[in-house]
């Protein structure tokens, strides 16, 4: 398709793998600007909204898609097949949102296993009634014919653990202004009116949520942690100083510090700030410096007041982290990033 000047418009694809749909809603949250996107690009694939099929993507030449926004983690064979297909067809592959970039909350599944899930959900849950011990069968056939189900992986992977990725857009979900920035910058660069950042870049700010948080910060010396329900925090002072865990000190800014502004600690959905690869490791080291402790015993006593540190430090970044999953012997080899 051509634009009004007769020039061919660049092609845009959007896809969701294992995701919640929030990234799709975040794309729509650019509201009327979606019309600018539609004017700048030919959208060639967007299963959520448009009816192009996988076979339409297969019919494109390799590299014919200019930009692919890929959200969701990689968790079954179908997710991986789509990642490989879209990678082959796309010049620029963007890991859009926390799931594809770092595994997000569903990546916490890497602390457990597929078998544990099957056991609880189909056998042990208090509402399950399954006297015959039935489980979903990937090779299922009805009396009338076969109807297989996709195989479910034991480990959640990020997009760049499966295919190479050019850019990352952080957030669960990304705030609309950054989606707009990314897409319009790509459109400008493809029209020869600007330059794209170097491959591997994260599209966003470089500093931390603390840097954009309006709460007053003093010297942090924490004697103990409080769980969010245990105290009503002072509305103007840094939450971490008040002993409420907030991941803002090691989390990339760009969201506008939304959670601290409604008295809730940041959980790190924007991933680590620029230059940091392992969010969890950075959260741990950063926290050590603010504890009001002189001895190891005092450190332990303070950390005992923060339950489930792994679940806080790796809330969004487990699948991407060096830890990757609890049984490291089975962790796959990492490639890229």
């Amino acid at each position, binding site marked *: 398709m051509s634009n009004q000047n007769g020039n061919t418009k660049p092609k845009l694809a959007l896809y969701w793998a*294992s995701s919640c*749909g*929030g990234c799709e809603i975040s794309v729509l949250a650019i509201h009327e600007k979606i019309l600018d996107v539609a004017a700048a690009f030919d959208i060639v694939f967007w*299963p959520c909204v448009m*009816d192009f099929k996988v076979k339409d993507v297969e019919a494109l030449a390799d590299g014919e898609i200019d930009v692919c926004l890929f959200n969701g983690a990689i968790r079954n064979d179908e997710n991986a097949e789509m990642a490989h297909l879209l990678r082959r067809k796309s010049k620029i592959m963007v890991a859009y949102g926390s799931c594809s970039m770092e595994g997000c909350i569903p990546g916490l599944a890497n602390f457990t296993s597929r078998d544990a899930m099957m056991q609880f959900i189909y056998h042990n849950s208090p*509402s399950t009634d*399954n006297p015959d011990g039935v489980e979903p069968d990937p090779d299922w056939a009805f009396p009338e014919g076969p109807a297989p189900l996709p195989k*479910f992986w034991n480990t959640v992977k990020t997009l760049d653990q499966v295919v190479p990725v050019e850019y990352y857009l952080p957030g669960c979900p990304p705030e609309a202004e950054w989606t707009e920035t990314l897409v319009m910058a790509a459109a400008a660069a493809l029209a020869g009116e600007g330059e794209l950042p170097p491959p591997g870049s994260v599209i966003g700010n470089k500093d931390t949520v603390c840097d954009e948080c309006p709460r007053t910060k003093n010297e942090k010396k924490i004697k103990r942690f409080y769980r969010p329900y245990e105290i009503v925090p002072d509305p103007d002072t840094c939450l971490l100083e008040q002993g409420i865990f907030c991941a803002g000190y090691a989390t990339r800014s760009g969201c506008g510090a939304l*959670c601290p502004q409604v008295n809730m600690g940041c959980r790190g959905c924007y991933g680590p700030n620029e230059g940091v690869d392992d969010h969890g490791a950075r959260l741990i080291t950063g926290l050590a410096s603010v504890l009001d402790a002189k001895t190891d015993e005092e450190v332990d006593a303070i950390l005992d007041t923060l*339950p489930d540190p792994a679940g806080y430090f790796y809330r969004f970044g487990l699948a991407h982290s060096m830890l990757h999953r609890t049984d490291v012997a089975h962790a796959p080899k990492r490639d890229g990033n």
Partner: protein
Amino acid sequence: MQKIMIDPITRLEGHGKITLFLNDEGDLENAYFQIPELRGFEVFSLGRPAEEMPRITQRICGVCPEAHHMAATKALDDLFHVEAPPVAHKVRELFYMAFYVTDHTTHFYALGGPDFVVGPDAPAAERNILGVVAAAGMEAGLAVINCRKRNHHAIKMLGGRAIHPVAGLPGGWSVAVTPEMRDELVRIAEENVEFARFSLQLVDDIVLKNQAYVDLIVGGAYTTPIHYMGLVDANNHVNFYDGKVRVVDPDGVEVVRYAPHEYTQHIAEHVEPFSYLKFPYLKAKGWKGFVGGKESGVYAATPLSRLNAADGMATPLAQEAYEKFYATLGGKPVHHTLACHWARVIEMMYAAERMLELARDPEITNPNVRNIPTETPTEGIGIVEAPRGTLTHHYATDANGILTMVNLIVGTTNNNAPITMSIKQAAQALIKKGEVITDGLLNKIEMAFRSYDPCFSCATHSLPGQMPLEVEVLDASGNVLKRLSQYVD
């Protein structure tokens, strides 16, 4: 034997897949609905502090995160044995009503509405939100966009974020309403009431005044007498935020009215090897397979179900619409699944009126939105009505509030068996030997499940678009005899 696959229809946090088998005579032999994905929140949440659940479980669904956030928050009140201050309940409900208005709006205009406002047999290219705008006017299109925008603003103001809000805590809510916020919320709610009035009028003018549509709604292809579930208040009026779960039988007679704590006494989940999604049913009736009627445990939880399970609506304009609904469709209960779309607009009116009541409540600006839990946490169950059905969150913890058990029965899951049955019923009515399978057939199969607003459609809210359907007709050797698709230019 011929096999017809409809894959993908689109997502339910993954894909939904319909498989139809035809016998050698060309009649329908059987129809199946499969959900091919599992995510396992019940298991990877274990070991986490319970108070994180409102922020964890909403990642089940980014389209209706508010519902999971709210069910989790209520489960925490119960788990920590703490009662939230009255104003906190009001702020939560106010937030939840803004969510309901926007969610029902997008489904009605972008997904369900086109079949009626534009027409079930209209050209496929027009059966979308743009077609709705063409039929109902540009005013309608702008009203839809503005409705979404102002309610997302209200959700962000009250919940911290427009997608994946964060304000729920055991014993309260982290945000208090200031007088400035109140003024803005009153204005938003007033506009919502006007918008709901406009939407009800649209149903009247475009659907009810067209006998062909009325005949379609009450026709046999989409009529399935089953049990109906919905949350009700003390007066048995529809409630989205709190109350008891009431179930009526296909004659409209109450069979159970249970408190959240009693859910496992009344609901059980059947497992089938062909789907990752379980099939809830009423324990008192037992699992009898994919059949309707009084003796079957199959129930639905939809806007239509909620109206059927209740005795009325708690606000005046919604009650007026409720009465008209049953007067028009021949009394209670209504078994026509396509009437779900109309029921959704009646609920939109209730949510808008309730939002306005709450925003105008003199207590809404009381800053005391928190009670601090002091008891030892044990076990908690929270139930809300999600737009797509009754949502149950059940947690148990150790004495330190660390999760040891999580069980979730999610909105669309309730409707797994009814959706399967509706698809089969529509396919049986439409696929006859010797008849050509057409685009119209595809849309009518779509209509069978679209009325449920299942979660695999909720992600298509708000932009022009339709459920992508592709049907392949295969012979017994797996050769493609015919391939049809719709909404493809």
